């Protein structure tokens, strides 16, 4: 009955299969509040039944929690969600040879693409334009360069020439998205949606549960999205933890749909997701320099939807503070937590100007 749950967050949005082993869970979101239990008991409430599912989504630990008195109905809804997640993984996964994304990358074009790929790639391109290319879905060739480079046992980053050669194929403006066709205009281009797909799948799972009549849900598929409240009637709680000291909470916030709460939270961090021995060479790659971005230790973004939270946390990680704040100013509904290299947290929320 205790809804206290600790859930791991994917280290980075751009994990490459070759580097999967380097993933460590150093950052996590706690959707819990230790004091909640006694309060609920004090009120004499009988907490509604909680149904929980745990599994793996896109290579990361995942969980769904449903507050609903009818456990059988909750279980059926979870089954339907698991199907939906599997369906979406089969579209976005870079590890499945038959996924729509892999087919697009292999052929350079995809006719009658799945709606979800069209929708999410268009969203990614909008984010790329908003961030002037800091976020770039076509960065996959650069990851491949890094992953292969370090898989061969390299210690230092790839050479400037190698990077420059690959960066010629990284250009979001050469991606054409239409509902009938997606095309990559330059030869050798490849797309990754690992920076936003997890959030998108999280949203879809939450939407499915909402459509099935569940109003109190926490979906944590690496990125978190919450509906309603916890079983005890309080908001879902999330904490941003210190990447270097998981016992230390840097900030907490309410998740869900109550006043002051954000429905979704996502975190990006490069530290600990390194390609090789150098901790400063990791998966958060800047498409301008071709090098890992080390502006922050981690960036968390809270937003109305997990897709946006996921995309923002990734993008903000790649931008130096002034540009990051400027980008955030365009998203009045979002809030960001920047953790700097000393572990100091800066909370940035730029409300919409009246």
């Amino acid at each position, binding site marked *: 009955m205790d809804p206290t749950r600790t859930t791991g967050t994917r280290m980075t949005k751009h994990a490459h299969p070759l580097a999967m082993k380097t993933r460590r869970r150093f950052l996590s979101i706690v959707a819990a509040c230790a004091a909640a239990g006694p309060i609920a008991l004090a009120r004499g409430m009988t907490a509604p039944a909680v149904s929980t599912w745990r599994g793996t989504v896109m290579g990361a630990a995942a969980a769904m929690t449903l507050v609903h008195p009818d456990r059988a109905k909750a279980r059926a809804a979870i089954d339907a969600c698991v199907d939906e997640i*599997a369906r979406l993984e089969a579209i976005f996964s870079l590890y499945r040879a038959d996924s729509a994304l892999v087919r697009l990358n292999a052929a350079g074009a995809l006719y009658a693409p799945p709606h979800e790929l069209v929708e999410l790639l*268009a969203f990614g391109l909008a984010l790329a*334009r908003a961030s002037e290319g800091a976020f770039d879905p076509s960065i996959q060739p650069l990851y491949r360069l890094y992953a292969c480079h370090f898989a061969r046992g390299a210690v230092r980053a790839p050479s400037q020439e190698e990077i420059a050669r690959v960066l010629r194929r990284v250009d979001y403006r050469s991606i054409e998205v239409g509902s009938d066709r997606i095309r990559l205009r330059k030869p050798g281009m490849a797309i990754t949606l690992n920076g936003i797909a997890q959030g998108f799948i999280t949203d879809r799972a939450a939407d499915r549960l909402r459509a099935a009549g569940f109003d109190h849900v926490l979906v944590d598929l690496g990125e978190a999205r919450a509906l309603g409240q916890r079983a005890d009637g309080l908001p879902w709680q999330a904490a941003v933890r210190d990447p270097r000291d998981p016992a230390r909470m840097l900030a907490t916030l309410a998740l869900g749909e109550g006043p002051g709460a954000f429905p979704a939270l996502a975190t990006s961090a490069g530290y600990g997701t390194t390609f090789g021995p150098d901790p400063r060479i990791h998966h958060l790659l800047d498409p301008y320099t071709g090098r890992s971005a080390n502006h922050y230790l981690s960036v968390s973004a809270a937003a109305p939807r997990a897709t946006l939270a996921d995309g923002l946390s990734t993008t903000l990680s790649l931008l130096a503070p002034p540009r990051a704040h400027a980008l955030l100013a365009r998203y009045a509904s979002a809030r960001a937590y920047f953790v700097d290299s000393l572990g100091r947290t800066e909370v940035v929320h730029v409300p919409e100007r009246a």
Partner: protein
Amino acid sequence: MRHTALAVVAWFLCLCAAAADAQPGTASTTGPSGAQSAAASLGGFLARVAPGEVIPGADRFGPVRESPLVAPAYRADKLLGHVYLNSQYVDANGYSGKPIHILIGLDLEGTIVGAKLVEHSEPIVLIGIPERKVVAYLQSFVGYNPVKAAASGKGSPHPDIVSGATVTVLVMGESVVRSAVRVSRALQAGGAAPAPAARVLDPQAGPSVDWNGLLQAGAVRRMLLTVGQVNKAFVDSGDKEAAQRPEIAPSENTFSDLYVALVSHPAIGRSLLGEEAYETLAKSLEPGEQAILVASGGGYSYKGPGYVPGDSFDRIQLIQGAETIRFRDRHHRRVASVHAPGAPELKDIDAFLIPADSDFDPVAPWRLQLLVQRTTGALDKAFVAFDLAYQLPEIYTKAVAPAGGGASTAASSTHAAPEALDSGPPLWQRIWYSRAAAIAVLALMLGVLTVIFFFQDFLVRRETLYLRVRYAYLAGVLVWLGWTAQAQLSVVNVLTFTTALREGFHWSAFLVDPLIFILWCSVAAALLFWGRGPFCGWLCPFGALQELTNRAARALKVPQYKIPWRVHERLWPIKYIIFLGLFGVSLGSLAYAEMLSEIEPFKTAVILRFMREWWFVAYALVLLAAGLFIERFFCRYLCPLGAALAIPGRIRMFDWLKRYRECGNPCQRCFKDCPVEAIHPEGHINPNECISCLHCQMLYYHDHKCPVRIQRRLKRERRSAMAPALGAESGAAAAAHAQRPAETAP
């Protein structure tokens, strides 16, 4: 190659061990008749195992629960997990067509913690092979959590197909994984809730009603999207560019008014389209195909403004479970108008076929997704999707009894897609696919045999060619079909088949071994045409082994012993008695009959290639040794499969083996030469014993061996005025030849 072969043998050995292990239990606890049917209950099997064997640490089982059908296992009062019987949840029929019963323990997380084979009827009964191999195989499932694995996209912990004849192993693995999914889902669902009965489409059900009636019944579902809703969705998406470009129309205006219906259901289809248009549509549907009607009003068309025939319909997709179905031009059927009275004005009306191979379940919920597009720049677009959920109302469906005695209650129709997730295509299809090469070779061999039979006259006129073809074919049958592909038919197949006919026939049980299945189909056809010969004389690997060893013995001048006709004739019935005995036993206990079927040395000599205990090997070698002196000794007198084939073989349609009037009277040449002594001294061929080796046909055309032919040749030669002395000489020899048998004839 060698490794594969060894692995295959190893599997057989381990299965044999399992078989040997299971038999005593079968016999001792349930008796011969009950072993096959009534004993397949969870409670019955639980009594045979210690709780700790299936759930480590458990010391007692609780009472068996009804729904789901499981028994809780406890240590003292602590619940450790649940135990169930695989065959009560999934089709676990193995090679024998009978279930392979395995008790499986799940912990509270749904992870498999133990599995124990408790009973099976696989025809691989063997004494004294270590049980540990089958135990090790089942142990490899321990620690596997199928629900979690399915959720993370991982499959079974085992490869889909282990090469070779491992049907039993495949069924075991498949049934463990699939049943574990069902049971853990049923347990997680709270257990107490009764699973909904499975429902299927009922083409007869449902009234013919007007548009509003269809809407109210839920047969037609609607999604009304307003401009305001679409604008909000773009704002919510987080795409700033899209949010800044709202539709300019008033927000309460209709953006899209979308309708869907399962139009392939006759009542819905007739109501919506009218009788004539429905019939046209129904005729264009292949079996298993469904069709949906999509119609819309409002400004946004699901076809898109630029739609031209030949395109795919890229603004809609159908989603069911984990499946996404896209529609292309070939799935599209034009619909002129909606016939149902009261329908609104609709701008677009189309029907779309859902292919039969898309695993679409018309009874399970699905949704049609509409992709809405918004231009955000010169070339830039944003998209949001809206779902129109559909569920066929219950009045158009009917309940079906769950198959297998309540086994599949957990597999309600809504689970169709998850099942697909964890099981893939049916087992037998995967096996056929994986054995495509072997199937092709077998088809080639059968083709060659058909050619041999159809052109036998051509072949047997050429003695050398005939002998080469025959021995080459037999060598192929022995080495490839027998030792490599292990496709040796056995009387066990006959017993399994007749038992299946009595107790419920399932194609799937026979389809799991493609080579055996194809061979049996061919043998059945050949039986109708020519009797038992094509199998016994050509396709039986052990028969080929006997014949080839006998030929080798003859070449080494091993003396051949000819059993006197009177004795020979009276030895024939032995094989029929053996077969009838086996058949009688199989009526009581198939498992026992299978054990007795070891009278056939097929398994020792062909399937296990003599790698077996010495007494089995000795028995097979004794039979082969007898065959060195008496050709096909086993076939003639002992083979129950030959007997089983001879009985229906009496209805054969063709008698293509040619005889002369002189055959048997006075000529005794074929009688003496027939390798299996199937030719009566009176000259006629006994079809029950004939193996269609075509030896007598080779003689029939032989100008130097068949006395009739020799005389004709001599006459011809005389007529063509050849040297008369030479002709007289041969003629005398032929006459002498014809005389000698006449002396010994009764």
